[in-house]
């Protein structure tokens, strides 16, 4: 997918059965979203702090995402996180296996990142984060 612009959000995961919202940010304009990618089984170093992503199975398959607009209208509801992954590492040292080689596109949705929530059926206690990339059309 061509990326005119993208932004990756790191959501700290915690208790199960609780809606976790994206971290607060300074006010930004809402950009139209045409693609979403979840990064799995990798670690990032951002702002000198490591973010560790939970290995894919079995926990990613217990995560749901709901995306809302600025007025809290639900645009994409109870979406399994799996569908946004493009590569999966089942167990080290197995190399990454492509799962969604045809990522779906979205109709320039006015998703407000701060109204987006993560709902997990698993409790995370190791400081894990979910990295979610929004691909914008402009």
């Amino acid at each position: 997918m061509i990326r005119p612009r993208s932004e990756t959000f790191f959501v700290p995961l915690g208790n199960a059965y609780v809606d976790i919202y994206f971290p607060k940010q300074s006010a930004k304009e809402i950009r139209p979203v045409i693609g979403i990618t979840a990064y799995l089984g990798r670690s990032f170093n951002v702002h000198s702090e490591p973010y560790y992503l939970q290995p894919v199975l079995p926990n990613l398959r217990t995560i749901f995402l709901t995306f809302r607009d600025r007025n809290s209208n639900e645009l994409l509801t109870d979406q399994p996180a799996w569908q946004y992954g493009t590569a999966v590492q089942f167990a080290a040292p197995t190399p990454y296996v492509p799962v969604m080689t045809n990522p779906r596109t979205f109709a320039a949705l006015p998703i407000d990142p701060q109204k987006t929530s993560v709902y997990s059926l698993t409790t995370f206690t190791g400081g894990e984060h979910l990295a979610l990339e929004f691909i914008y059309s402009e």
Partner: protein
Amino acid sequence: MRPIQRAQTIFVTIPATASTGSKVFLPDIPELREAVIDGIETYTDTQLGFDLTGTAIVSAANISGLVLNLVQESDRRAQDFPLQSLLAVAYGGLYKEFSGWRLNWQKCYLQLVTAGPAASAVALNVFYHYEARKPR
């Protein structure tokens, strides 16, 4: 595939008492009553472990034991559609698209062709949009 405008996941619980031939009707979802359907995909427990109540999603071995019937008013638009065909992960992420159906969700149902899927849940991710009905 057309760009997605809206999406809603429906969860259907297959009772433990269900057997070959049993029909399980889909729930009423208010957001989908006036929706025009663009596509549907499903998952096995490899991609999605549980529904929101904690019921295990149907396994890869048992998903072939289900067919889906989609009804618009009284017209069965999809008859005995193998649920396995809706597994996007089996097609590199491509999901099945439909040509703008407005479904009567409470008349739509899953039917067991084997007893294997009993006591599990099915997740149907429905991609849809809203548009005004054309005058007759």
